[in-house]
Structure formats: structure tokens, C-alpha cells
């Protein structure tokens, strides 16, 4: 059951990107490229797929969302603030002394289920939540957003095996497949292809979409589980740094902080100014 709140997800994605630019620039936080990579996915999820309510952030039947790629915390904070979980003004405290918004997501904030940041932790936790949902006969779903880099982690694959064994059809993984990890392209580090086949052979139902195409994302995520008795995996083909030409598909923008002329140039592009 998804919430029938249809909002303009493209506008939400644009806001997420602009917030994230200001947050990382002002606070000196990194990972803007990794946030832009999944900004459209976050916008589609928080624009209508997830059954969540900022007035009741802990309501029992809410869908659970686990941001396993915790370094994209800036994007999740922006999505939550835009959906009313906390004031958008708080976003600018990101990364700064005394803030609640640390670089990697923190469950101290309303709407955030778990703190992550160490890779390979999110999927096991999400799988535990999914198993609890089945034990308790609950109808909500558990969505986990993973980076491709954290598919290097053994613990991710331990959870992949477990979820299939236990037929966790209330569990949905979205992999932000931008093919660039921390300091290099994955082709030069640990190649994941044939990636969809890996998930399928581990017993998951798999779909692949363009991770920046909102209609495809919405249609696919609106049709989970993809198959009965199987956990679902959506491989979202994305571009790291998407939305700012000079950040796109660039290893540099995993860690680089947007400042000065780069900040201004990025803002102009994101706002669609000539």
C-alpha cells in the first residue's frame, strides 16, 4: 500500500539537489556526487511510493526505508525536510558544530529508521525488519537503498542469501548502480557484472531501470513485489553527480566539496538558469 500523495517528484528531486549543494558547500561535507546519483530515486520514494507520514513518523504500518549508502545522508535529510519531517532551515546546519545532521544518516532524526555509514550494514538490518514484518503478519514493506560499492561487502551477500532463503517478499532493494565507487570506477576495482544475473541466481526477482527516469522508477517500485515468495531487487542505472554537467560520471566528485565558482556554476545548472 503506497500513500496516495502524488507530488511532483521532478520538482522534489530538484529541491533535493539544490539543498544538497548548499549543505555540502556550507558545511564542507562530501559525497555530493553520490547524493545526486540517487536524488531521483529518493524523490520517487518520498514523492508517493513510501507510506510514511511526517505527522506520525513512528506509526506502526509505515513503510521502512533504510539508507544503506549512509554517505548520501544529505539527500535523505533534504527529502525528509521537504516532506515535513523537520524544518528545511535545519538542513543548513548539516555537518556543523552542534547539528543533528551528521554526514552519514542518524536515527536521531524523525523519519530515519537506522543510522548507517559503515557499508554493508543496511541490508542485514532491513532483512531483520522484513522477517519481523512476516512474523507479525504486518503489511508494510521495507525498502533498502544500496550503493554498488557496498556490494563488495561480504555482509551484503550474506543478507542476500538470507532474504531469498526466508522468501522476504516484503523486502525491496534498490541498488544505485552508478559504477563509480570511492576512489575509482568499479570496473577497475571489483567488477560486479553480470550484476542482475548475480541477484537472480541468488533467488531474487530483479528489474532494471534508468535510475533517473521518474516514470520508470515509479511504475517499477509501484509494482513490488516483482514476484511472489521472492525479495525484489531494482537495479537503477544511474550517473554519479547527475544534474551538474561537470560532476557527472566523475570519480572526483565522490569527495570534492562544491565551493566558490564551482558552487555558483552548479547552482545555475540545477536551477535551470541560462
Amino acid at each position, binding site marked *: 500500500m503506497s500513500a496516495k500523495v502524488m507530488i511532483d517528484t521532478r520538482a522534489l528531486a530538484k529541491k533535493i539537489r539544490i539543498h544538497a549543494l548548499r549543505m555540502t558547500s556550507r558545511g564542507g561535507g562530501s559525497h555530493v556526487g553520490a547524493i545526486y546519483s540517487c536524488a531521483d530515486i529518493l524523490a520517487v520514494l518520498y514523492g508517493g511510493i513510501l507510506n510514511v507520514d511526517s505527522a506520525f513518523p513512528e506509526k506502526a504500518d509505515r513503510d521502512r526505508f533504510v539508507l544503506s549508502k549512509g554517505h548520501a545522508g544529505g539527500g535523505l535529510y533534504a527529502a525528509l525536510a521537504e516532506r515535513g519531517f523537520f524544518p528545511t532551515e535545519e538542513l543548513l546546519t548539516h555537518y556543523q558544530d552542534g547539528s543533528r545532521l551528521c554526514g552519514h544518516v542518524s*536515527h536521531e532524526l524523525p523519519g530515519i*529508521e*537506522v*543510522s*548507517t*555509514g*559503515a557499508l*554493508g*550494514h543496511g*541490508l*542485514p*538490518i*532491513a*532483512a*531483520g*525488519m*522484513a*522477517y*519481523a*514484518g512476516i*512474523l*507479525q503478519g504486518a503489511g508494510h514493506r521495507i525498502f533498502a537503498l544500496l550503493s554498488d560499492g557496498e556490494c563488495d561487502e*561480504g*555482509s551484503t551477500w*550474506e*543478507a542476500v*542469501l*538470507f532474504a531469498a*532463503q526466508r522468501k522476504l517478499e516484503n523486502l525491496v532493494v534498490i541498488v544505485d548502480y552508478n559504477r563509480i565507487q570511492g576512489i575509482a570506477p568499479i570496473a577497475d576495482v571489483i567488477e560486479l557484472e553480470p550484476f542482475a544475473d548475480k541477484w537472480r541466481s541468488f533467488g531474487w526477482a530483479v528489474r532494471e531501470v534508468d535510475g533517473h527516469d521518474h516514470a520508470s522508477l515509479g511504475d517499477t517500485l509501484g509494482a513490488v513485489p516483482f514476484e511472489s515468495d521472492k525479495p525484489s531487487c531494482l537495479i537503477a542505472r544511474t550517473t554519479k553527480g547527475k544534474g551538474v554537467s561537470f560532476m557527472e560520471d566523475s570519480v572526483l566528485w565522490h569527495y570534492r566539496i562544491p565551493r566558490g565558482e564551482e558552487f555558483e556554476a552548479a547552482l545555475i545548472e540545477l536551477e535551470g538558469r541560462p
Partner: protein
Amino acid sequence: MRDSFVGVLTEQAAEHPELLLLTGDLGFGVLNDFIARFPRQFLNMGVAEQNMTGVAAGLALEGHTVFTYSIGNFPTLRCLEQIRNDVCYHNANVKVVCVGGGMSYGPVGMSHHATEDLAILRSLSGIEVFSPGDLWEAAEATRYLLAKEGPAYLRLDKSAARSTVRSGEKFRPGKIRVVRDGDDVTLAATGGILGEALTAAETLTSQGISCRVLSVHTIKPLDIETLSAAANETGGIITIEEHNVDAGLGGAVAEALLEAGVIPGFFARMGLRNTFSSVVGSQTFLRKVYGLDAAAIADTVSAKLRINAKVHA
């Protein structure tokens, strides 16, 4: 101790439908009764301790009381970051249980010796650490953990001291048990090695040395009150653990006493010293090899008392 633990879980599972027991594919034979009676409350997670601990955290966040169960270092060091980030930071109701504390699995080899776990686990924020010395303490600690919310670690030993429980005695978590009173020396032990301390105390008593024996079944929080009393009322303190002396029971006691400004007449830490055991042997044999059996404890006490007598002569 393992059977005491499983016995309590089996006895309580019906009353605690939120209880779940997760194993890392260990406990053959031991868990059969529990599995047969409570199949919905049991999960064999396979040989995947990181996932077991992360899943446990997820289950706990959804309202379950989760025990993760495995041998030696597998449920602790192998998945330490999951215990730190997923369990402790979220204050998740997960109880990590290790069977085979110290050198319980003696001849199996060093991979199965849990000799740093107390030091490492007690350094995590928000976790309680239990290391019972006899079967009654193991059962009572399990009962306590079932009822108490929050992260905990339970270290179960293959050996167990003979029971010293008094009629009507209530288990008090976080409170050291004075299992024998005396005033020449205090022997503070944790885990099944408490049995060696009790045997040493009998030997020493026959030589006219009066021993106070403490069972430190809770390492964290540590009972500074009983330790301070022992420092003030007895000649000195010797800590005994089947564990590295660094940051284990001995380290914890030293930290707590010094910070409280209570200095015992003498102090010694008995345990493993910067070594892994590659000697093959039973738990009893290895205690002898590494100077941790009753005879070695009695010798250490005699030596300390002699030195102390000279200093004060």
C-alpha cells in the same frame, strides 16, 4: 552453562513470544528441544555472523528480544562492527551469547579460544557484560537478560564452579557475589575459573590464610562498592580470568579502584599475558600450562603475602 542458558530460554519462550533465538549454525543437539517446541522463535542464520547480528538488530527494532548464539569469537569479534553500530548505537534489544568462554574449547585450537572478548565488548557504549561463574549464575543471568531491555553480552564457560548459592539468595545483576569470606586476601574471579579460585582458597585456608572469594559475574557495570570493601578489608586483591589480562577483569578492577582512590595492599592480575595458546590440551590442562589453575593461584597468593610481609616488616 550452555545447558543452563538453553534451559531457561526453553522454559520461558512460551511466556515471551517476542523472544527469538538466532544461531550461527551451531548448537547441534543442544538446541533441539527449543527448536522442536518453538520453531517460530528459532532461526538458523547459517555461517554468517555479520548478517546474523544485523538481522538481530532489525528484529529488535521491530520489538523482538533477540539472542544471537555461537561459539567463541564468532558472535563477537567476527561481527564487532555490527554489535557496535547496529546493536549498541541503536540501543537494540539484542543479547549476544558466546559459548566457550576462555579456553573452554581447549584442544580445538586458538581460533576457538575467546580470550579478548570481555575487554573488547566492555569497551562498547551501552552494553552490559556478563560472565557467570557457575550454573546458577548462568541461569539467573539469562533470566535477567530476558526481562531487561537493551544490548548485552553473555559469556558462557564450559567449566563451572561448584554451586555456592545460599538458600533464598537472589541474583543481583551488577553486584559481585561474595562466595566465601575472609580477610588476608581477595580472589576476584570471573567465569568458570571461579572453581579454581575456590579450590585455591581451601588450600590456603588449610595453611592458615583466610581468603575472600568474589564471583564477578557482571563485568559491566562493575560493582566498585564490593571491590572497594575488599581492598579496604583484606590484605590485597588478585584478579583471576581465563582471558588476556589487558583490559579484561584485571584491567577493569584496576581502573575502577584507582579512579575511586582505593588502593589495595597488593594487587595482581592472573590471566593470559600477551600470548595465544598453540599448546594442545583440555581447558584444565591449559590452565595448568598457563599458570591459572588452583595451585598457581595459591602460589601467587603465598608469594604476594611474603613480599607484603617483608615490605611491612
